[in-house]
């Protein structure tokens, strides 16, 4: 067996000297990979992102994470559209850690909300009522005024699917409340 292996290797192409310049992309990729593993294990980064090779390895992808925004106003409770959260939301979904969630919450303070003029219907079997949608930034539908928001509840969720049974459930990852005034974002009461 050893003899056959040695004969196979001897017949093979000779090893070439590694070009010194190759060390640049090698070290770069290894540095990125080490950062990736650190962020995955210590900060919840999805293995699908951040420079590793974990695509199609696990259902723990950024697409399984979402945020819920509930606006408490004088005219009722609205579901806030997440369209105005931009890169902050993408970053949180990729790496759902507390610091990013707090940054997302602080972003809410920059947003002006308007009635979106439509209802969002929940899943039929949930027993919940439809909720009015609020949109952030820019003019809303004709005639819509800016909402007077007393409090904003922000929650970060993860959707888990058990492939064996097909059951789906949500797991709450983070929760904060935003109020105008000093401090802004607080833990819920």
């Amino acid at each position: 067996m050893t003899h056959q292996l040695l004969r196979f290797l001897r017949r093979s192409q000779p090893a070439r000297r590694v070009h010194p310049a190759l060390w640049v992309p090698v070290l770069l990729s290894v540095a990125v990979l080490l950062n990736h593993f650190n962020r995955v294990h210590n900060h919840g980064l999805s293995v699908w992102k951040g420079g590793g090779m974990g695509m199609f390895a696990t259902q723990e992808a950024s697409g399984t994470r979402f945020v819920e925004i509930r606006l408490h106003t004088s005219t009722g409770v609205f579901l806030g559209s997440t369209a105005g959260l931009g890169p902050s939301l993408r970053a949180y979904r990729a790496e759902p850690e507390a610091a990013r969630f707090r940054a997302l919450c602080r972003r809410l303070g920059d947003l002006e909300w308007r009635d979106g003029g439509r209802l969002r219907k929940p899943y039929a079997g949930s027993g919940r009522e439809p909720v009015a949608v609020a949109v952030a930034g820019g003019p809303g539908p004709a005639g819509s005024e800016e909402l007077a928001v007393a409090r904003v509840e922000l929650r970060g969720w993860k959707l888990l699917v058990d492939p064996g049974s097909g059951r789906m459930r949500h797991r709450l990852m983070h929760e904060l409340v935003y109020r105008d005034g000093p401090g802004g974002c607080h833990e819920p009461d």
Partner: protein
Amino acid sequence: MSRIDGLRAQPLFRHLTGTTGEGFLTVVTSLTLATLVFHGFHHAYFVIPFQLLAVAFLVVPSLQRNGTFWFLVACFSGAAVWLNWAYADNHKYLLFFWTVVLFLAFEQPEDQRPGLVRQGAHYLLFFTMAMAVVQKTLAPDYLSGEFFTFALMTDGRFTAFTSLVTGATPDMLAENQALYRQALDPVNAGAALPALSAGEGMRRLASVITWVNYLDQLAIAVLLLLPLTAGWQVVKHLLLMAFIVPVYLIAPVIGFGWLIIIWGYCLVPERIAYMRAGYVGLFLLLCLYEFPWLDLLV
């Protein structure tokens, strides 16, 4: 002269297989530029300056072999990745690393360039396959088949393939995907959710895909580590092509597929240079993959 010899003597074939003097690097850089144009980085710090670089290249084609040109491409690619580092797709990192390799290659004397390009391709392909195997091994839901069962249940890209192979109806799969999307809607946050449907056929298919994909990537990584005879080189490249053809048909992440094809092209040794034509063919095939062919069969 046989027909095959006649084909190999054709100037176009010789150019595409990189057996002319400048053909190899021209094909590699051209395919890389196509990848950057059509499946590059979406950040404004890349898109706007790269438009200028692409126009410059069209007006002055020799820039394709200029180190400063590739340095600028690498810088803007790096900026795009850096600014989106947490949510950039992993193959965008690989594309950035590849632009660094090309920059470094074109800073070398002419006789060293092909060698450095090949070594860079060899390293990055090994890195991709080996790390994919490592992360699939470490993932808690990959080797059990749970991940691909989940993907077949919820990902619309697998609908046609799943329906064709398992007989699951497109309506059932569409209902699964609709329920899954509803579960990701914030209006349903915290609510009791319905269960998805997954038959035994889907689980078996998931298990097959799991192990075929895993073992193919493992085999490619191992073969990239070993010094090989021409015969084993052919096996290696056939395995790589066997990885590319089905994976990107089902999950058309074309930019990633193109990158792997470019690396495969680079790694074909001169003795079997005709195999590079296969990679050029695959590059064009992946363009066609963007059309939803499988949906026509369901």
